[in-house]
């Protein structure tokens, strides 16, 4: 697993309809109307925000690698397309098990909590009650302190339960051996120091970026197992509030509240001192997120059906192409239709 293989997968979904930068925004989890829309239209939820701090140089390197290997080509209008060889290469890719849409970087908060819990329990088990906490973030420390409050940490039973839960969860998670090695070596205990990304890379003979991607995917796998297992009480508490509660941006939530109170789009724009185009973005987000979105307040059912059928025939989600087929509809209306009617995976 490496960045360029993930990028290849992403490009195969956006094939010929977006520029290469759409991939960068997606991996970073940019919460703009365009990116959120892409996520929905092209079925890219898995990869949304898996690398919040991705540097553009790193991204460019991965993109250039694909280009130099002849997997992708850039069209005149700078849209990116798979080549024949690229198409074959996509077929050879392993299957990825990210769930970026649900976690958006907060899997790292989960791991922060887990590592501090493990470090604390490991130290208390041998009677060591003072140590340098491996997590410096106050929120994580407070969470862990609350979670461990009133637990009998000095008795070996607690450490045993935690160890058993972790073993169970790792076994159920379908992680590969490398992933299990990585995750356990990022944990620290009494007298056992953690391994840096570079040290893991040298030992496992992989590059450091691949290690990090494997790590993030393994956390997504682990969280999936934890959420669906009733017999992992400590880990479930550790994973509390890690999954996003609402998929809407904060700003869209406010717009939605005003809309529910009966305000029109123009009124919302005036009340919130925002441009109408911004409010339109919020509505598109709502159409994607909300199964109950009242689409027919904005377009007729007939138009909606027609657009969906046409999009299927043409095999495109590109607004400009669809707009030229439906002169009477606005871009905004077409975006709402695509949002509400392609909702979920493609």
């Amino acid at each position, binding site marked *: 697993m490496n960045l360029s293989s993930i990028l290849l997968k992403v490009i195969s979904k956006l094939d010929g309809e977006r520029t290469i930068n759409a991939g960068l925004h997606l991996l970073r989890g940019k919460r703009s109307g365009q990116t959120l829309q892409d996520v929905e239209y092209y079925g890219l939820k898995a990869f949304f925000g898996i690398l919040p701090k991705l540097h553009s140089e790193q991204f460019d390197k991965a993109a250039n690698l694909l280009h130099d290997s002849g997997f992708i080509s850039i069209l005149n209008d700078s849209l990116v397309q798979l080549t024949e060889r690229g198409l074959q290469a996509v077929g050879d890719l392993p299957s990825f098990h990210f769930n970026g849409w649900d976690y958006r970087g907060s899997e790292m908060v989960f791991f922060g909590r887990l590592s501090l819990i493990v470090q604390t329990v490991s130290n208390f088990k041998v009677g060591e009650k003072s140590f340098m906490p491996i997590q410096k973030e106050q929120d994580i420390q407070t969470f862990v302190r609350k979670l461990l409050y009133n637990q009998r940490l000095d008795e070996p039973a607690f450490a045993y339960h935690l160890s058993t839960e972790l*073993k169970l969860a790792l076994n159920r998670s379908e992680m590969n051996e490398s992933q299990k*090695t990585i995750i356990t070596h990022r944990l620290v205990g009494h007298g056992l120091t953690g391994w*840096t990304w570079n040290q893991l890379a040298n030992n496992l003979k992989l590059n450091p970026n691949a290690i990090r991607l494997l790590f993030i995917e393994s956390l997504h796998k682990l969280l999936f197992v934890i959420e669906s297992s009733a017999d992992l009480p400590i880990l479930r508490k550790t994973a509390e509030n890690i999954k996003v509660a609402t998929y809407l941006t904060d700003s869209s939530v406010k717009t939605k509240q005003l809309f529910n109170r009966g305000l029109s789009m123009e009124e919302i724009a005036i009340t919130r001192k925002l441009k109408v185009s911004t409010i339109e973005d919020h509505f598109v987000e709502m159409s994607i997120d909300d199964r109950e979105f009242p689409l027919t307040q904005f377009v007729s059912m007939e138009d909606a059906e027609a657009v969906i059928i046409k999009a299927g025939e043409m095999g495109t989600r590109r607004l400009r192409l669809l707009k030229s087929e439906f002169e009477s509809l606005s871009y905004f209306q077409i975006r709402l239709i695509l949002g509400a009617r392609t909702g979920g995976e493609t």
Partner: protein
Amino acid sequence: MDIRGILKEKFGFDEFRPGQEDVIRDVITGKDTIAILPTGMGKSLCYQLPAYAMDGQVLIISPLVSLMEDQVAAMKRQGEKRVVALNSFLSYSEKQRIMAEMGQYKFVFISPEMLVQKNVTSHFQTTNVTLLVVDEAHCISQWGFDFRPDYLRIGEFFSGSNRPTVLALTATADDKVIADMTRYLQLKSPTIHRHSVDRPNISYSMVKVNSEGEKTEWIKERTLSTAGPGIIYVASRKRADELASILQQQNVSSASYHAGKEQEDRAFIQEQFINGEIHWICATNAFGMGIHKDDVRQIIHEHVPQAIAGYIQEVGRAGRDGDLSAATLLYSPDDEGRMRFIIQENFPKEREIRYYERLIAENIPSSEAAEMASIHETGKRVIDYYLERMTIEEAILLMDELIREKEAQLQKMLRLIYTNQCIRKEVLACFGENLHSKSKSCCSVCGIEDDRWLMDMKSIVYNKKCMGWQERLIAILG
């Protein structure tokens, strides 16, 4: 209770380390005090102990969040629970909670940028702070190598009549820096305690090479044939990573450390180094503050430091256990020009300052404006501070003066490198001290009588191996 009683009861020591007792007595009697103690001499005891002999709160201003957290954790380990850190990494709700409960803390660590926030300032101006500690106080001096403009504001907030006693702590300060500390912290005829910067167990060597490539070769050879633990200071993050991987290829137990690494990785490396699993750290000047390791045997500089004070502070991390240690500085003919370039780059120039001010006047956000005017982060902090307080013409003149001062510091550093006098003597002279007795292992000019210890110790080969995952879990949790 007498201070020796407190020393025994609260800290478990029978004796003070050299220099501590005098500082503590002055602080308790309410005198403004400047204490210049080398790293590892127990600076923190100088405010922790008086706190137990005084009523009211102790406010400690500390420049680095990581340093602050280390100190808080260390105090909690000693059993002092009434300690808290207030810095910009706290969430809003955490900060509110701490502010609401502020009365219950005896020791409050705070970052300078936090102190200048309105509600925080007004809180501390009205509560009973008896002692204000300024840690790493040399950061207040624009002549210093670590200048932090936020520090300049500290004095402005505690200028009233019932202001607390101030204790300024630092490891290194020459007369100019002392004058700045006194002036900007508005100290009232402070007592100055200065412990000698001389560290007789450390030898100083200057090694001339012809190129950067030779430096790499020298370091390879050195790390293969002599023992750590050691720190290799380099000029950039990129170089730290590069050198660490070159050494790893030789099987030398090493890792890189700099502020560009993630927090967890930095913590892992620090722990591994302290634990003795890693023997060489290739680091920028981000490594060192707050790291407690007594048996560091070697400090190698692969670049020419910008100022002697910074150099001495880095060298001072060797040999805290009192055993023989070696400091080596490698230099090549290109270094002078390279350092000058870095210094110039850190200070905004006239054209950039004028452009920056024009952009600000056009209501462009300051961080964007700085980027457009190609002013670095440090440069921006410096210029923001001065533009608030003086006209642009004055600020431009001052920048010129600062660059000249930095150049003068670089010249001093270069003199130290090229001198044919005793290096130790020259170092001491820079801090206004005389050399009283000569070390056997003195310096590359006087000769190092006995450095067999260095050769006798075997270098340690890197042999860290991953465990199986189940084995690892059992090792951690059982």
